[in-house]
């Protein structure tokens, strides 16, 4: 029963995508039917995920609800799905994030249906990746993930950005595929990820294979010098749904590191951890200073995402698996906060165009957006009644424990991230910058978007009290 439930959760967005693509709408610019189909399939899936949570044994970190399907005999290729608390938590977070994304493109003038269609395909691939138990399934969904996103990013005249996105992610996928095929030749059968450690790779070959895998993951996470695609994509995308999806993509790399690190990797690679960690903190610092000096609220939000992903990566690099639960809880809260913030940020940017593009003081005339934005910014900076606060505290303390220098820089960067987010709040609430002409034309966020923001705030508060408050 559990296995079937998991399969339904994985494949329901794909079914939704098919229905969305053949749904008919009266107006070519509005796609209410498509949005409704998507919203209902995601809401139903969230309900199924919560149901699956209640059936899982939450006291264990092992993979549950495992279903094994043989796909091909020669070479023997199985597709194995299963979940643990970490993957299910991330799955839930991504579902919420895309739900918010779809709510936020309700007023998008063009291509709503295509965007929704590919967002659902992206959700399907995310769910598949997070429930992958073996190497082949992981590879399959890792590759599949960036195709719908590539389609979304190339919207409008963004072909160059899309090309760059493709180059980085395509090379990453290629490296993973080559490494996985090389690993396959050691067993000639499907290989569960947790059994990779049993394969004894000889010196040089082992290093090549593992380097391929780790570079593939690195391409997905915005670590210097692999970060260029995400910075150019997120700054230029024109709708919040694509922004949210783009910011979900690094989860695949992070999840890969969580699954492979530290149990499966050989000594030669794990000895490079300090190098990875230094790369991370340098990128974090650079990004924090850049966001501080920027006036664009979108760039600040992007840098916030950037910094937190690297913080989680530092948490993954710590030589222990005990942080897994905290990473899951924190990432869940992080996904909710950032997607809701993206929704409001894009709304504010769109509205600001009506009054000449100036954002200063805009929240003073938009009460609902103002309340939602304040709540979300406070949660994002780590206000001590949100789920983000407590788990980040544990992650930071673990990083400090493993390396005091890296930990101190990480804390400093988190502080800077909080400052530049509050700075954006200050700009948006600053009455002195307010252009009075044309402000009566500005429209506030609609009731659904406001409801979604409040829902995020409530969820974060409940998660602070008990991370798995929804399980009975």
């Amino acid at each position, binding site marked *: 029963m559990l296995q079937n439930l998991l399969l339904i959760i994985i494949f329901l967005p794909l079914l939704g995508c098919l229905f969305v693509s*053949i749904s008919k709408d009266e107006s*070519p610019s509005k796609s209410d039917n498509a949005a409704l189909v998507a919203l209902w399939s995601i809401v139903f899936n969230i309900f199924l995920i919560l149901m699956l949570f209640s059936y899982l044994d939450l006291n264990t970190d092992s993979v549950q609800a495992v279903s094994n399907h043989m796909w091909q005999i020669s070479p023997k290729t199985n597709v194995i799905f299963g979940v643990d608390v970490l993957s299910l938590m991330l799955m839930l977070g991504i579902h919420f994030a895309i739900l918010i994304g779809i709510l936020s493109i309700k007023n998008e003038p063009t291509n709503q249906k*295509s965007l929704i269609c590919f967002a659902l395909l992206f959700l399907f691939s995310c769910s598949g990746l997070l429930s992958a138990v073996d190497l082949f399934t992981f590879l399959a969904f890792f*590759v599949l993930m960036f195709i719908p996103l590539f389609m979304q990013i190339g919207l*409008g005249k963004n*072909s160059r950005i899309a090309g760059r996105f*493709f180059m980085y992610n395509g090379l990453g996928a290629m490296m993973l595929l*080559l490494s996985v*095929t090389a690993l396959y*030749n050691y067993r000639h059968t499907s290989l569960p990820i947790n059994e990779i450690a049993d394969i004894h790779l000889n010196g040089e070959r082992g290093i090549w294979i593992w380097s391929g895998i780790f570079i593939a993951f690195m391409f997905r996470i915005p670590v210097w010098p692999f970060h260029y695609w995400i910075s150019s994509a997120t700054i230029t995308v024109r709708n919040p749904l694509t922004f949210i999806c783009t910011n979900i993509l690094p989860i695949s790399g992070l999840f890969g590191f969580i699954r492979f690190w530290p149990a499966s990797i050989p000594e030669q690679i794990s000895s490079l951890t300090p190098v990875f960690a230094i790369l991370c903190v340098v990128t974090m610092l650079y990004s924090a200073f850049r966001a501080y000096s920027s006036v664009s609220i979108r760039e600040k939000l992007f840098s916030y995402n950037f910094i937190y992903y690297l913080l989680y990566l530092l948490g993954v690099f710590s030589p222990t698996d005990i942080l897994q639960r905290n990473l899951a809880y924190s990432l869940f809260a992080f996904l909710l906060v950032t997607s809701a913030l993206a929704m409001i940020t894009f709304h504010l940017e769109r509205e600001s165009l009506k009054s000449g593009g100036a954002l200063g003081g805009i929240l003073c005339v938009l009460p609902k957006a103002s309340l939602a934005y304040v709540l979300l910014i406070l949660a994002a900076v780590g206000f001590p009644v949100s789920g983000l606060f407590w788990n980040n505290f544990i992650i930071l303390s673990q990083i400090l424990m493993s390396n005091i220098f890296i930990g101190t820089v990480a804390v400093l960067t988190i502080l800077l991230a909080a400052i530049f987010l509050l700075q954006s709040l200050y700009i948006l609430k600053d009455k002195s910058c307010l252009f009075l002409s044309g402000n009566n034309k500005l429209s506030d966020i609609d009731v659904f978007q406001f409801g979604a923001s409040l829902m995020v705030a409530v969820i974060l508060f409940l998660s602070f009290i008990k991370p798995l408050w929804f399980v009975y």
Partner: protein
Amino acid sequence: METFLCLIKELCLPIGIVALLFHYYWSDKSAKDCFSISKYFIIISIALEVWGYDKELFPQFFKTDIYNLTFLLATSLAFYVWLLLSIKWFTTENLPSCRFCVQALLLLFCYNKLITSNNIAITAIALLLIIILQYMLLRFSQDNEEFHNISGRYAASIGVFVILIGAAVWILYPQHLEYTQVSQILVNLSAPEKLIIASGLVLVFMFMLGVAPLHFWLSDTIGPSILPVSAYFGFVPLAAIWGMFIKINTILLPDLLPQLEKVYILCAIVSLVIGAIGVNTTRNLRKIFSSSSIYNAGIILLIFSPFNTQAVTNGTFYLLIYIIGITGIYGLFYGLKSNGEYLSNLNTMHGFFKSRPLLALILFVLSCSLMMIVPFPGFLSLWNLLTSNMAENKVLLSCIVMLCTVVLIPAFMHVCRAIFFTDKSTNFDRVDYSVYEVVLLSVGILIFIMLYPNKVYDGINAVLFYGE
């Protein structure tokens, strides 16, 4: 009675041609009737081939077995689908189709003889006839300005291959020309003679398949030709030519395979590179897919190149996936019509997803399969190819294949993006039911292969190595 039926089996298609000519001279000249006559004769021919798969009137020249029957059926079905789709083009353009149908039946007859041939002279004659008939087919596009250049190059190539095949047959002529005996004779020949025979036999097939460096005619032909001619070169003869290519390599040239493998790998790599770059240099849909066919010819050749049991099965598996996918794509081309005009430029596809969501979705699925994106069936072959390469420590070859695939994918994604993310600017005409039938069938078969690859794989294995 049985001999009579065997005779009918051999002469079914020529009788069809005579019937078409009678119809042309003594009846009205509607496009539909000519196609109906051709279709009926193809169906009868298929039925008779199935009935008499183990019966042959001239066993010294032709051989019928399960292998030949399978490729013969695949070719006949491809011709049937091609005619089914082409009827719409001739009806829309209001052009006479008798000459076209006669040539189609003649081509199918030649392909049937080529597939079943058991004698090198028959093979050579059938091949030359096919190449000449294909040249005649090209003449349907002679209104196009580019036609004279293309036909000139094609005609020059025919001349070269006539000389090569003639030389091969001339060397072998005083002795027996049956396949099994030719392979024994080859062992005792000198190296230059072997080279001439191998070149004569292999190069002509590589030319017809569009394998680099003999690919030069393919994209030039498919791009500017009329749609039925493009579709013909796109998918119709693939099964027959690859089927023969396998036979030539495994039956006639087994002793030369170690040397030929290196040549094949080199040609395959050049095809991959040219195909992958080619798809990114044009906005013409037909040219994109013709360049992708060069790339795919490279992939198939690479899979086949060792010509052992595993390689032949894997190659045929991908060949099946590719033929089904590309047939669906060409089927879709027949549905891309605005104000009675068939569209081929990417700029004219705007809003296709909004007007024809189902067809756009099918195009996406078929493209993903051709791009070898997981979990679509095309990926299975890439996966097979990479794992077998890795097992043989051919890491560099795997890297080249992957790099070319990464270069190829954006062009296809660009096509999909133009279809999905553009505002409606073109008014697309109603799509014929036959187009829906062909594309839905293609995508249905691909989904079946995606879900049950083992069943298809086992089936292919059983057909290829029946009785072994």
